[in-house]
């Protein structure tokens, strides 16, 4: 009775129905396409951006790396050559350029959205993947607002904080890695490890963000979608060709 006094829910609700989308994928021809549908039942939209080397999407915005720069809804920002790794954090993103070994922060919607981190990635003690020539950055991620890196060293695969401290380790045999909120998804010899699960899939070579809930997985020349929501982990194949 007290509750009813505190508020009232109007019984005349309204509904809006639209076509669901699980995110955007990068197809084999370098085109970014919207993936419509639900898990295991999807269709692809037309290529929205072409000539894309890497792409990543959060739930609110997408970034596509071309040779010329980073393409977003607000335009193209020039960027170092080659592909890029993305990590999303609200309206911002961290971008790692493997070829130039540069880190930048993306402020979505800003007039000059790309800001490069000079010298070192973090604040004291300065550290960057460059400080150890053997480091291969496999993924960038965000943990509590701070950037993290998954790096392969001679000693194994480590999750490294912005200040250079080690936050965790992954199995030495881990292949492709994607840092996700609260952990990491990585390729094993026979599948994908996620949330204490291993989903069988041979030949995983790369992960990228389709949305906040889905990763695109490339394996054996085929693209898959991996749902990463805890308890709803699902892997299914994405359509190929020019659907």
């Amino acid at each position, binding site marked *: 009775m007290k*509750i*009813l006094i*505190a*508020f*009232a*829910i*109007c*019984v*005349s*609700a*309204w*509904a*809006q*129905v*639209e*076509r*669901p989308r699980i995110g955007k994928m990068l197809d084999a021809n370098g085109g970014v396409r919207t993936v*419509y*549908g*639900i*898990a*295991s*039942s*999807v*269709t*692809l939209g037309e290529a929205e951006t072409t000539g894309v080397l890497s792409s990543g999407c959060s739930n609110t915005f997408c970034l596509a790396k071309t040779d010329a720069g980073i393409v977003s809804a607000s335009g193209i920002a020039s960027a170092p050559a080659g592909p890029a790794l993305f990590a999303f954090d609200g309206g911002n993103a961290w971008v790692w350029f493997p070829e130039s070994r540069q880190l930048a922060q993306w402020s979505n919607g800003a007039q000059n959205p790309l800001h490069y981190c000079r010298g070192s990635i973090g604040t004291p003690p300065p550290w960057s993947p460059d400080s150890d020539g053997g480091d291969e950055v496999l993924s960038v991620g965000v943990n509590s607002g701070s950037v993290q890196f998954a790096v392969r060293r001679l000693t194994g695969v480590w999750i490294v904080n912005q200040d250079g401290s080690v936050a965790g380790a992954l199995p030495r045999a881990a292949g492709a890695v994607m840092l996700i909120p609260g952990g990491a998804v990585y390729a094993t010899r026979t599948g994908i490890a996620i949330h204490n699960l291993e989903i069988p899939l041979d030949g995983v070579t790369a992960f990228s963000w389709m949305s906040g*809930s889905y990763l695109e997985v490339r394996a054996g020349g085929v693209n898959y979608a991996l749902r990463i*929501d805890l308890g*709803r982990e699902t892997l*299914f*194949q*994405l*359509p*190929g*060709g*020019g*659907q």
Partner: protein
Amino acid sequence: MKAWLLCALLPLAADAQLVIHAVTGNTETVVGSTYPPSGQMWQVALNTTSSVQFRIYNTSTTPVAVTVVLSGVGFTFTSPLLPYTLPPNSTVTQALNVTVSFTPTMVASFNANLQINGLSVILLGSGVTAPTLTSASGCSSTVPFNFGTVPTGGSTTCTFSLQNLNPQPVTVASVVVNGLGFTGPYGITAPLTLQPQEAVSFAVNFTPPGALSYSGTIAVGTQSYAVSGTGQTALLPAPALQFNAASYASGQQGVLTMTIPGGSPIAATGFVNLAFAPSTAVVKDDSEIAFLANGARSIPFSVGPGATTALLSGQNSAAFQTGTTEGAMTFTITTATSLTGTSPVKVFTIGGTPVIVDSTSASKERAGFLDIVITGADNTYSAGMMSFSFFDASGNAIASPISSDFTSTFKSYYGGASAGSAFEVTVSFPVVGSVANIGSVKVALTNAAGVANTGSLTFQ
């Protein structure tokens, strides 16, 4: 001039000074007035050649000039330049070697006179039949050897036996296969010598390049045997379509493999097709239902000769989506290659199901509203009725469930759609007052197939 002079000066030796041996391997036997010895015949297969080496020694104490004359049809000889001077008491290395060959051209008796100075040897020969060629397997047993009907692109093999039925070895100079579509011989190398009663096997392949009748020959020495065969338009055994499940529902991905029972005798290509007929009148198709390799309703297949599994878009299997519409999925194949048996057809009926709930969320962040988002699919295209049960933060029900009918909204959304029934519905409830104590909501969605529940959605 010197040699002629030497020969002229040599006294003519008496016949007894010369001895003729027949050489067989390392064995020498003295030759009398006939060769072979009386009662035997030098039997040689027709149109084949047999040779005998004669070795002539001089047993006297003086040199002897030797001349050789051979008269008789079918016989020839080779020797060093004649006259040939044999030294006294000639040794093996000093002896005169004369090779006599006999090549009969008909089944008959032959004889010749081999005259060596004053010695005369009567050669007794006979022409005998050539080695016998018979088919062991793979073609008819009578000439012409018929390889039967073979699909174009396919091949069949006939095994032959070549046997010497004569009582002496026979040399086979060559075995040659002639004729378009026929290749070989395999497993035999000519020339070869067949011992009495010895048989050798060899194979001949027939690979018709087209749907025609073909003929050729197998030439064994000078003997020719006709072969024949017929090419037939290639037939592919009716493929079997196999699936990773006995039945499918909406919102699934299945896997198809295609096998060729017994293996394919030929190479073939074609397409596996996927058709869909909705069982609802609301939509005419569902484009989600497709092969994932190309996002289309048909994928190419290829079969190699001998293959038991077809490649589908170059892979051993093909994944497909079942979409989000009730109806019938039908798999068929099309190929320009004729099939033995009936072309496969596999139909899966996708039944109507309660709404598939894919993801949910509930939010009270927007001032004055409770927003509930449900992503799912309704393969009956009849959703719209929803019931909302609200709970406080302690899990106590807040008033009675609220029922809402959004059928018209869904109908409008689905009208003319062909990309499946997936939807994302945002239901907004205006709220008056504080929403702090509103904890969660459960939603029941009703369609023609039943009721689906979201479970408890906590307001964020």
